[in-house]
């Protein structure tokens, strides 16, 4: 009897062990909503950021809850965007190797800003930078906004504290964003998130408006790779309540 119990225990431990080392990088997977609008900016509050994202240095590829503002897509050219949010994962995933030493600073759990733009010959320039201190908890508000006093300049802030300002020198026009996506992005097959984690109070700055406006429309599912059955619910502004997106999984 004891032998059987021990054998079962050893088998279970070995299966768990195998599961743990099976973490590997995947193509990006998403659950997200999108708003098509000519815009000068957007803002939203992420709840449970970043503790609702289930990841660790053992599952080191990016897991983010963020927003993306896309610029006009040029024919046969890579995408161009600015991005702001919170996440967990290696900084510069494709550049460095996770270091198991205590002093290792490679893994980042926190707020970040990224952008990508394209030159006239189609070459890309990608940037990612950390914002604030590591391991933020609770809710945080993210905002991207065009600086209308200078061409192609965008401002970012987290919790209304200034973060990055960027003047983009690519070949396209970066004065107006064309589409906003808000969602969860994962590049590791072992990632998950707290079921029901959400974002709320989504505002945008439509071109032609005098400033930020509470977004009162609906935002459809932005269909991209999603082979994990993750999904989302959109709750529009109703009776004075905020709009919100809830992210769910099977």
């Amino acid at each position: 009897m004891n032998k059987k119990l021990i054998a079962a225990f050893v088998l279970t431990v070995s299966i768990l062990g195998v599961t743990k080392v099976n973490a590997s990088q995947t193509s990006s997977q998403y659950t997200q909503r999108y708003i098509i609008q000519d815009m000068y900016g957007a803002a939203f509050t992420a709840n449970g950021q970043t503790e609702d994202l289930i990841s660790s240095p053992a599952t080191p590829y990016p897991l983010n809850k963020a927003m993306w503002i896309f610029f006009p897509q040029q024919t046969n050219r890579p995408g161009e965007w600015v991005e702001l949010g919170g996440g967990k994962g290696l900084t510069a995933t494709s550049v460095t190797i996770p270091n198991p030493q205590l002093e290792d600073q490679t893994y980042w759990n926190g707020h970040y800003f990224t952008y990508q733009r394209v030159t006239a010959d189609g070459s890309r320039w990608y940037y990612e930078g950390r914002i604030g201190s590591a391991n933020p908890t609770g809710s945080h508000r993210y905002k991207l906004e065009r600086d209308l006093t200078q061409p192609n300049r965008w401002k970012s802030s987290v919790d209304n504290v200034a973060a990055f300002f960027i003047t983009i020198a690519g070949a396209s026009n970066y004065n107006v964003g064309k589409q906003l996506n808000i969602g969860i992005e994962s590049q590791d097959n072992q990632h998950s998130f707290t079921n029901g984690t959400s974002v709320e109070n989504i505002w945008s700055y439509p071109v032609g408006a005098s400033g930020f406006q509470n977004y009162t429309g609906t935002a459809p599912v932005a269909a991209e790779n999603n082979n994990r059955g993750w999904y989302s619910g959109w709750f529009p502004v109703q009776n004075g309540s905020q709009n919100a997106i809830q992210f769910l999984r099977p």
Partner: protein
Amino acid sequence: MKKLLFLGILAIGITIPTTSLLAQNSVDNPDNSDPPGLRRPPELNKPIIPEPPSPTTPTEYLYPDNSAKPVLQMITKERAIGQLRQGLNLKNARLVTYADYIKFKTKLGGDIIENAQVHPNRRVWLIEIDAPNGIDVAQRVRDEKTPHPEKFKKSKVLMVVDAETGDRLSIDIAENQ
């Protein structure tokens, strides 16, 4: 024959509820974007909060001026670089101010970045890396119809590491540089 009958009943049993569920969903949600029966959770019933104006200047540097501190108090170049992935070559690593990095980046690509958290006189390790065979960078596309571009071709990588704490502040990956 009995097996065929069983399979037929099973197929009908699956098809009718599924079709009915999908039809109901399309009535509830014309864009078919919300799962059926999903209701707003009570914790999301919050009043709308007005958006304040964006801040325009740094309020307090998370990484203040440390230019007066001795170089010996800074971390070593080796620790700043860490371990590079296979196929990447270290070109050089130099101790500079954050303002020097900004100037270098602007000269290289034209973009002007300002980081409201880092004082211009903050000491950082600016690490230049060559990726002669290219490098993978996650690519965002607006929708699934847009083709996903391939990995970056031959690239230059700029890694900026805070020289006092070792924090990796940022990374630039420039294709065809």
